[in-house]
């Protein structure tokens, strides 16, 4: 026992929970200690709630707990009148202080490189800590209780200098690590993030140690407490950085923070108000807040998960789309090259077949004529197919060229009908041409491509109409200022579903195979693209399968005052 009398200094010898006593004059010390504790535990608690697997978040919680232990121990030093308590808490406070520094070092490592310091570094820290473990309880740490005045202080030993040196080394280590990482090639795009977390952590440590630095320099222990107000500020900055750069949702953080905050505030009413029945009301409100808050957080979380999934899918879709575009382009190029390669020999085949039929090589037997006619017909279909492939390639590559001129659509249609009549008649079908064109029937378009489309449509009708007739009608509508060509047949017809996508690439009527019709499924796609490009439109109609089809193409009518697509 020691022969001093605390009553002499008029110390308050009664304290509640060791930290509340009249020795702490004013509430300033409580604000500087308890407020940062609340802030740190709250922020790190909400972060852990949301992302407990993130080691940086868990380290922040560790720092908060170490700070809480330090802050409460420091409060005991302010409040107690018991020299034993002063000696004990003053002795052990260095552990908490160093743990805050070591935790900060780990935090920076986890935040920047997502891994802890190297094993060698961990071993170094451990070895450096050994003197503190050995001498914390000895007079090397605290020489003894100072009763030469009434300040309730201990006399600090040499170990304290070693602790401060260690703290300085760790702070410099953090700075150096941050700068090194900023300059490294890997983290070049994260310069701002690394700079902020490094400076934020060092500022947090400086702010935390300000009291010790000023106190040890024997300026003023109370003045140093202002530094502690900076602790929640810098921890908030670190929290913000975690949310910003560690894919933690701000929305969820805010929702959790709001619910947690309201809950704590409501619970705190239980301790500060003593109105009758208030406990029941407050408790009920707190439970309600907790329940509603739980559903709020759950729904926010679900929304975030869904949004992340959608974003992820959109990203994958974008990549797949880009890949598809490349593949599509490659396919078009391939088709273009292959078609060109096929076209030249085919022209030769068709030419020689024609010459054979014309008798350029002498008279040929009737059996051979029939065979050569088959060659010529097949060659013609093949040439049309190749032309379709080439047109698709040109359309998709944007290389299709149009030569616009004014011409009489009715005349061109009639010419084509006459050219194709022998072939139609040969198949045992009738080919009729009608005209109800009261105006000049002039359109402005590419004459070659327009003929190609009409021919395609007649060919189509021929393919899909095993018997009956094909009718080509030209008519105009002066009110709408349009001129149209309608190709109707008595063929296999189409269902409503087929009509919807008949102009798409590689689409053929569902019953096309039933009548053994060959085709690429590109003719109508090419026709639609060409007509639309020339300012017209094309559509298909049918009353149903087996009831024939009607294809109509419409162009703006060219009158004396003008109209149609300009070149």
């Amino acid at each position, binding site marked *: *026992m020691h022969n001093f009398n605390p009553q002499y200094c008029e110390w308050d010898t009664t304290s509640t929970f060791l930290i509340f006593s009249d020795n702490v004059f004013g509430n300033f010390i409580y604000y500087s200690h308890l407020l940062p504790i609340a802030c740190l535990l709250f922020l790190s608690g909400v972060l852990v709630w949301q992302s407990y697997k993130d080691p940086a978040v868990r380290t922040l919680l560790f720092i908060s707990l170490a700070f809480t232990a330090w802050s409460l121990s420091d409060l005991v030093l302010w409040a107690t009148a018991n020299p034993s308590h002063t000696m*004990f808490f003053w002795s*052990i406070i260095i552990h908490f202080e160093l743990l805050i520094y070591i935790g900060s070092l780990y935090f920076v490592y986890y935040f920047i490189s997502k891994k802890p310091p190297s094993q060698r570094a961990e071993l170094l820290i451990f070895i450096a800590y050994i003197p503190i473990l050995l001498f914390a*309880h000895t007079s090397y740490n605290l020489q003894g*209780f100072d009763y030469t005045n*009434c300040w309730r202080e201990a*006399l600090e030993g040499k170990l304290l200098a070693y602790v401060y040196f260690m703290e300085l080394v760790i702070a410099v280590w953090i700075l150096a690590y941050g700068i090194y990482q900023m300059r490294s090639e890997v983290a070049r795009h994260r310069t701002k993030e690394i700079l902020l977390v490094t400076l934020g952590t060092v500022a947090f440590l400086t702010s935390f140690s300000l009291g010790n630095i000023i106190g040890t320099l024997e300026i003023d222990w109370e003045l140093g407490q202002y530094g502690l107000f900076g602790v929640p500020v810098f921890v908030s900055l670190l929290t913000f950085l975690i949310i910003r750069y560690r894919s933690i949702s701000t929305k969820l953080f805010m929702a959790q923070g709001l619910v947690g905050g309201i809950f704590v505030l409501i619970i705190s009413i239980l301790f500060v108000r003593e109105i009758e029945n208030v406990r029941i009301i407050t408790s009920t409100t707190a439970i309600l807040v907790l329940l509603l808050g739980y559903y709020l957080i759950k729904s926010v979380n679900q929304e975030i998960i869904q949004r992340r999934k959608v974003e992820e899918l959109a990203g994958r879709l974008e990549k797949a789309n880009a890949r598809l575009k490349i593949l599509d382009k490659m396919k078009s190029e391939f088709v273009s090259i292959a078609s060109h390669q096929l076209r030249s020999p085919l022209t030769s085949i068709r030419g020689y077949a024609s010459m054979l039929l014309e008798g350029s090589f002498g008279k040929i037997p009737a059996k051979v004529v029939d065979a050569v006619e088959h060659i010529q017909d097949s060659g013609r279909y093949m040439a049309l197919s190749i032309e379709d492939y080439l047109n698709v390639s040109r359309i998709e590559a944007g290389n299709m060229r149009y030569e616009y001129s004014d011409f009489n659509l009715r005349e061109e249609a009639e010419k084509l009908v006459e050219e194709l009549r022998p072939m139609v008649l040969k198949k045992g079908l009738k080919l009729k041409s009608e005209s109800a064109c009261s105006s000049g029937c002039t359109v402005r378009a590419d004459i070659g491509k327009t003929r190609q489309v009409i021919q395609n449509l007649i060919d189509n009708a021929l393919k899909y109409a095993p018997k009956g007739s094909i009718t080509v009608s030209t008519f105009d509508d002066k009110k709408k200022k349009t001129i149209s060509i309608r190709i109707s047949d008595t063929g296999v017809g189409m269902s409503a579903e087929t009509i919807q996508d008949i102009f798409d690439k590689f689409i053929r009527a569902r019953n096309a195979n039933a009548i053994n019709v060959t085709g690429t499924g590109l003719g109508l796609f090419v026709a639609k693209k060409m007509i639309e490009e020339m300012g017209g439109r094309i559509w298909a109609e049918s009353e149903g399968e087996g009831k024939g089809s009607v294809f109509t193409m419409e162009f703006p009518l060219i009158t004396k005052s003008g109209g149609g697509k300009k070149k």
Partner: protein
Amino acid sequence: MSTSTHISAFIKIALALGILASIGITYQSKIVNEDFEVFTNPDGLPELDE
């Protein structure tokens, strides 16, 4: 877990146990045994600020 993780965990556990032991010894020394020196003035009374 790899060997390095084991060593890392071992270091952390050793440090945690070391700190707990240090706090325990300090408690025994300062609070239970009150084993610390008290500095007073020669006349036994502290000097007041005022």
